[in-house]
């Protein structure tokens, strides 16, 4: 059975990609827990983060007739410094999104539907802006540790260095987030606002500043996820984030909207499920059908989503919403 033999390998690959899903989905879920809205522009932040890091490491942008074609910054930073700087820059972009696309709507207490549509609009604008500034050529992966071995074997499991690093970075960032949320005053304030924004603002928490901080934080999470994905699969173009944007949404609903451990669980679950399903292939002789899981791989998050919603509408770890009259 090749399926069983490949299971450890798939498990490792799934953990790696799942850690990215989790990291990325945390960016959605944090904003949702505070504002009860979904920031559809998060996928664009993912892409922007990957581009920022690529540019800061001194990479040359793609060809074509675009304003920044074939240009590069005159310096080249170490990957890790570029990752941090790029993530902070992406966080600033996210703060700008909050300022221009969300705050005006929040201030006049508009329908949440409008904020969804407005963030969808921002997402389109940002991805398209990248396309019109640097073109849509795929760009090579930045190398996290120059001169490292691309992969090594551990008991028949091929461990690709980039995947291992992705997993490690994601786990470190998530641990930092856990610390921030549970052991600092800011984290306590965040939790208070997510429980009840009005009461916490009455108690002296500056809600607007906290919201800006959350957007900054979510931008950093999305950008780190984007950069780590680009070290595995290259930068595939200005729309590389759109696939992750949809999967990330599935992740947060599967885990329970606004639930932080739920998003992590959902991310790992989907990552592992996806790699395992894509390795399945069997033959149904009666129908003369060679079933191959890899062609159904992209449907896995949404089929899982439908099943979870049917069985447990509040998500795996979510609390059931009580409708108040």
């Amino acid at each position, binding site marked *: 059975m090749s399926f069983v033999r490949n299971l450890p390998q798939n498990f490792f690959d799934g953990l790696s990609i799942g850690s990215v899903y989790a990291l990325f989905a945390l960016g959605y879920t944090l904003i949702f827990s505070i504002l009860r809205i979904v920031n559809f522009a998060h996928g664009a932040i993912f892409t922007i983060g990957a581009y920022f890091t690529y540019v800061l490491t001194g990479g040359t942008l793609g060809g074509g007739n675009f304003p920044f074609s074939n240009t590069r910054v005159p310096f080249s930073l170490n990957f890790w410094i570029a990752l941090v700087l790029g993530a902070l820059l992406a966080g600033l972009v996210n703060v700008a999104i909050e300022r221009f696309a969300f705050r005006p709507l929040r201030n006049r207490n508009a329908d949440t539907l409008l904020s969804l549509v407005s963030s969808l609009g921002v997402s389109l604008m940002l991805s398209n802006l990248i396309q019109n500034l640097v073109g849509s050529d795929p760009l090579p992966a930045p190398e996290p540790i120059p001169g490292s071995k691309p992969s090594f074997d551990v008991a028949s499991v091929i461990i690709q260095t980039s995947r291992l690093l992705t997993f490690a970075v994601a786990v470190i960032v998530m641990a930092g987030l856990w610390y921030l949320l549970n052991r600092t005053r800011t984290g306590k304030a965040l939790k208070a606002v997510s429980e009840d924004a009005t009461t916490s603002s009455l108690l002296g928490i500056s809600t607007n500043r906290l919201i800006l901080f959350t957007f900054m934080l979510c931008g950093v999470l999305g950008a780190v996820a984007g950069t780590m994905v680009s070290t595995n699969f290259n930068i595939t173009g200005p729309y590389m984030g759109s696939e992750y944007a949809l999967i990330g949404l599935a992740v947060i609903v599967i885990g329970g*909207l606004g639930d932080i451990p739920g998003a992590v669980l959902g991310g790992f679950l989907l990552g592992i499920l996806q790699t395992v399903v894509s390795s399945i292939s069997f033959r149904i002789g009666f129908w003369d059908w060679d079933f191959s899981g890899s062609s159904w791989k992209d449907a896995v998050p949404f089929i899982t989503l439908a099943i979870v919603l049917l069985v447990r509408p509040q998500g795996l770890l979510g609390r059931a919403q009580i409708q108040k*009259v």
Partner: protein
Amino acid sequence: MRVPRSLLSGLLLLSLLVGFSVVPGLSPAVKVYMLTAGALCGLSAYLPLMAGQLSLASPAFYLIGGYATGMVSVLWVKEDFETGYWKVPLGFAKITFTSELYPWQMVVVELILGAIVAAAFGFVVGTIALRLQGIYLALVTIGAVEILRILVLQDQIGPFKGPLDPGDPERIRHLGPFGGATGLPGQLRTEGMPQPVDFEWQYLLIAIPLVILCAYFVFRLERGRTGRALAAIREDELAASAMGIRPKYYKVLAFVLSAVFASFAGTIYAHAQNAWSYRQATFALATAMLAGAVVGGTRTFLGPIVGGMVITGLFEALRSLAGVDGLPGGLRDVLLNISPFVQGLIMTVVCVFLSKGLISARLVDRLFPRDTTLFRPASDAAPEGGR
């Protein structure tokens, strides 16, 4: 910052219409045709919104409509190569249309078949999504589109393999039940989808009555019992159900109707498009449909129609502007690629500054006055300041 609403919306509309009509590249008939498809897409996004539900599933139904066209016109109806006539094998009989053009009656059949399949799919998605609201619902509908897209991409689903690949000399490879990745007609017909018309403008003979019918239908729906029920659910579902309105029934109804309109758009677009594949249903299309509805205004049927036309017209205008001779290469590239940016900008600006959209409900009430005789008080002494 308050911008006069009517001024802003009037300017936007006017500039778009003028821009769209003066750009070269497309014949007027094709322009109008695209606008009609845009209007149907807008209506499709609007119907769930009437009940306060954000659905992004319309591209799935649009895809179904287009595939209904492809499967009927390419896989079912056959052209007799000697006479050029079209034959419809029915199993027990064979209908022959003695015309060399693809029979328009079959276009009607496509519309109906597509609508039935889309309505069934809409019923399933709507029923699954019933317990969900807001963002959950939007996510499930995105998922439905993705699952359907992947389904039609398959080479084989269970026992279904689809037609033989004519490009394969050994005649063993199949295209997949829906034509696989190349879609329909793929390699089956080198000349593309069969055309029901001689001239492009004749498409309008199908498209314009269809749009007017649909618009009238939604207009009547909105003014009637169903429309009021949907509005009540949108404003407060709990209160509506306390008043004896069944939210489940109306929500699924809105979903099914939305599916039907989207499938109409797919059917009429597929013939003009000449080919149909899974690429037609994208998340970008879902956002464009939603943008149409939101830009036009989601309080009355005319809004999504106008908004859908505006968004479609805008895309085509930008694309054909890029075809103007003598443009510098950089500008042409930008024009070719900029339409998502413009769409996004419009979506955000409309949400932030003009949240009621271009067309207000009051305008429609003025254009099509309500029949108020039913509500007039019995005595002549109308209350002061009454409507």
